[in-house]
Structure formats: structure tokens, C-alpha cells
């Protein structure tokens, strides 16, 4: 299991080198989140809570590993200033079976969205605004 919280861009191929190489892995799922240009968005700034962030993500990742018996788990999440098209974050899960790899990746995404201390501020034609959490993001947690 590996968790990275960083302002720098990351290269998924580099990060995934050797991922899931141990154990008897049959399935690897990755998710990459990218800054969209929706509504003329020109930039995004992600604030976080430095002393809490890695700890919170590690707790979420540990739960995923335990619950789905993952062979490996990777979470990378950036903070700071990002432009449209840039990668915000990625998760990867390695498991024997595909259902576990998919479910664990979706679990990680749902929890990172609402339980990891990040706040997105978008800059667009009308200035900068904090992204509001959606009720559906909170609701998504209830399926786990």
C-alpha cells in the first residue's frame, strides 16, 4: 500500500511500475481524475489539511485493503494550483478477482471524495468559487 500527497504532477506509468507484481494478482483497476474545462474553467486550486491528509487517506486505503483482501493499493492526490487537463489524483487496486478490484477502487473514490480533507476552488469567467459538496457524494457512502 502506498499513499502520496503532493503538489507535483505525477506520471501514472511510473507510479504503476511494479504495482501488483507480488501476490497472485489477476486484476488491476486504476482511476485517474482530471481537471475539466467545464463552463470556461481556467484553473483549480486544491487546499488540504497537511497534518491530516495522509493519515485520512491511509485509513481509507487500509480499510479497502482489509475489506477486499487487496494485494496492493495505491493512492496519489495532488494539492495546489492545477490547470484543465492536468491529473488531480489516481487510485489503483490489485486483487485476485476483478469484482474486488473494481469495488475497492470505487470505494476509495467515494471515500476520498467526502472524507479526505481536500477542498477545490475553481477559477472561471465569474471568478473563483469553492466547489460545493454534492448530496449524492455523501449518499454514495451508504452503499458500502
Amino acid at each position, binding site marked *: 500500500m502506498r499513499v502520496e500527497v503532493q503538489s507535483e504532477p505525477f506520471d501514472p506509468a511510473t507510479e504503476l511500475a511494479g504495482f501488483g507484481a507480488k501476490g497472485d494478482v489477476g486484476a488491476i483497476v486504476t482511476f485517474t481524475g482530471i481537471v475539466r474545462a467545464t463552463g470556461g474553467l481556467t484553473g483549480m486550486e486544491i487546499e488540504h489539511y497537511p497534518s*491530516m491528509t495522509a493519515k485520512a487517506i491511509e485509513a481509507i486505503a487500509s480499510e479497502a485493503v482489509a475489506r477486499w483482501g487487496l494485494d496492493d493499493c495505491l493512492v496519489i492526490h495532488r494539492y495546489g494550483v492545477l490547470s484543465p487537463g492536468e491529473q488531480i489524483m489516481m487510485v489503483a487496486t490489485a486483487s485476485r478477482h476483478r469484482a474486488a478490484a473494481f469495488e475497492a477502487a470505487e470505494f476509495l473514490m467515494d471515500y476520498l471524495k467526502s472524507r479526505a480533507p481536500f477542498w477545490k476552488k475553481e477559477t472561471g469567467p465569474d471568478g473563483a468559487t469553492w466547489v460545493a459538496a454534492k448530496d449524492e457524494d455523501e449518499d454514495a457512502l451508504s452503499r458500502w
Partner: protein
Amino acid sequence: MLDVLYFAWVRERIGEPRERIETEAATVAELVDELRGREARYALAFSDLSALRVAIDQELAEFDSPLAGAREVAFFPPMTGG
């Protein structure tokens, strides 16, 4: 002494990212009441608790959570990671 941290629009409304506070508050809610009584910017930031989340010592907590032993309390809006 308690370190009190603010993030995102809570930080912007309060006007600073952190401060040290001398308090006898027994719960988060009591601390919020104290802060609200200080200045308008606090009253504004804490006007709707349903729009806020709180963490005690870097763990998510509730507004009725006790503050005994806490060193750091953070207030912020619902998180928008991922």
C-alpha cells in the same frame, strides 16, 4: 491552549488559517458558541453548522464531541476531494 484551524471558505471568512485559543469549552459546540460571540466574522463563518465539518486532532468529529485532551480543532466545509 487549543490550536484552531480553518480551511477553505471558513478560513476566508475568519480571515486567518489558524490561531491559538484559551478556552474552557467542554465540547466543539461550546467552542463554536464562544467564537461566535467574539466578532461578526466568526458569527458569519459559523452561521450554519450543517454546512460545516469538524476534526479534533486530525480525526473527523461531531459538534457534540468533547474537547478534553484535544490539542487541535479544525473547521471546514464538506470535503471535495477525488
